[in-house]
């Protein structure tokens, strides 16, 4: 059995492959396992599954069996989701374990432990402010060379001569998927956006995300 003490917990397979690719690119000095709940023995690959599994994982920290943990979830939208609601939910789960939200966010959200355990990281997609999901983050990080093609995808989706089958909140998903369908290797996951250098690595939001990841998984924190 592989030993894994640095974990990035995500909602599902799309996020898993995306963040695996992103972390590869970052060249961190430590190995990080990116996993949705079911890969770790949780019951469901959903946002709820992430929340349910969080205490079990954090309980492995006091004796060093788990060194670093961060979570990426979608804010989704009101009335059931939204940034504020998601933040409050996570805070309710981790505060009995003596983690409290730091007022000094490093890119993403940081929870500090009262008794010296490593910081616990939270990123609420897209940008720790607005409603949305991973695709909304991507939309804000499109490379300048790709912008024209992306804009075209947006207009195609917007001008569909048929009634859309997707819900309005999934419109960005449709736009990003359409744009990705016109790339070198259509039909793969969102991770191709990183592999094919379709993202603007200098964009503010991209930089925020990687700074946050570097902070959580920096080896000297362990």
């Amino acid at each position, binding site marked *: *059995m*592989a*030993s*894994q*003490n640095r*974990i990035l917990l995500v909602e599902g397979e799309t996020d898993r492959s995306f963040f695996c690719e992103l972390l590869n690119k970052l060249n961190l000095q430590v190995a990080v*396992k990116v*996993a949705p709940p079911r*890969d*770790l*023995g*949780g019951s469901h690959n959903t946002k709820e599954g992430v929340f349910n*599994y969080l205490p*079990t*994982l954090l*309980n*492995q*920290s*006091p*004796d*060093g*069996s*788990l060194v670093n943990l961060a979570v990426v979830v979608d804010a989704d939208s009101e009335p059931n989701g939204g940034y504020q609601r998601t933040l409050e939910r996570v805070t309710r789960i981790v505060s009995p374990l003596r983690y409290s939200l730091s007022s000094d966010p490093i890119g993403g959200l940081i929870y500090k432990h009262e*008794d*010296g*355990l490593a910081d616990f990281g939270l990123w609420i997609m897209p940008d720790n402010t607005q409603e949305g999901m991973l695709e909304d983050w991507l939309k804000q990080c499109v490379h300048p060379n790709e912008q024209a093609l992306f804009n075209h995808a947006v207009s195609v989706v917007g001008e569909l001569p048929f009634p859309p089958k997707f819900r309005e909140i999934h419109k960005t998903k449709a736009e990003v998927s359409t744009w990705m369908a016109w790339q070198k290797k259509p039909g793969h996951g969102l991770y191709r956006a990183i592999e094919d250098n379709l993202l603007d690595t200098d964009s503010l939001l991209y930089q925020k995300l990687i700074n946050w990841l570097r902070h959580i998984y920096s080896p000297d924190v362990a």
Partner: protein
Amino acid sequence: MLKSLVIKNFRSLADFEVAKLGRVNLIVGKNNSGKSLVLEALRIYAGNAHQELLEKIAQEHDERHFLDKNIKEGIEVSLPYEDLFTGRKFPKEEKPIVIGELENEDALKIYHVYKVGKDFVATDEEGNKETIKRPVSITSLELTGHRLIIGEGLLIKKKGDSVNIDFNVISPDFRRFATIDNPLPCSFIPTHLIAMNELASDWDSIALTEAEETVKDAMKIILPEFENLIFVNDSTYGESKAIRRIAKVKIKGLSRPVPLSSLGNGMLRILQFVLKIFPAKGGFFLIDEFENGLHYTVQEKIWELLFEMAEKLDIQVFATTHSWDCIESFSKVAIDRKDIDGVLFRVGRSVRDSDRGRVIATVFDEEALYSITQSDVEVR
């Protein structure tokens, strides 16, 4: 049955707590983490720290358990049982070894004490009063510079009862009687194999009973062709020596018995388990390194047997392991047997600021066990 566990000031377990125990408990942890010490503490708890038991434990570790009068003063020697205390020396303050349940006053306590002479007024037959000195035990806290220290020892307390172990008294004749409370039945399976003669006498006490059938069924877990078992005197042993008994096994299709020892460690190990579990009725059954000699394919069946027997005989089982296979097989049975509580706890060292290095327990109940066995999270 203990519902929780607290161990204080005992070897490296300075302040160790397990909030929840089950009927069957598996203890995991790295080498030298202290998991075997938990078993040792439970042996001492069950045996009420009886002197004979403490001597046996000291001998297992090559530690001192008597004062050697022949050693000249000035040479640095340890006092008997000093190694039992955290830091391998007697505490300066009054800090006893504590073994018991959380928030339960009935815990076993072992104090290091000094013997001092105390004045007592005695009245003889003619009514004359006379002051005599009698030795009493006091802890270092009560010790003042004025009194003459006659000796040192241990004071053992449990449920309001107490008994002394005096380091100066080495005669085996009268100290053996000192005991408090009734000891709890306790069987301990060490990592090495138990002597055949001991197993033979355990066999004698269950022969021709229902328990004998249980033993035979257990043997079939490893060797389905197993038919029967007996202990016989070893004829190859020299006449001058004491009687040595060995186990012989009847195997299906073979006309003559074969020595059990020729069938591999697994058979010997499982025989130990089943022969030693009956005397543990109503008490503890402790296994150091469960997986020793047992291939992973048979471990699940052995856990099933242990869960079943533990419930039937009202035994609380504690086992240690290094093996992931053992954790998996334990978890599977613990989850399947919803009626019997199985708990796994990991012994490790804190990385928190307030108690860095302290030996702590991380408990996995059945739900957490399920998660953890499905995952890559390091449990051991």
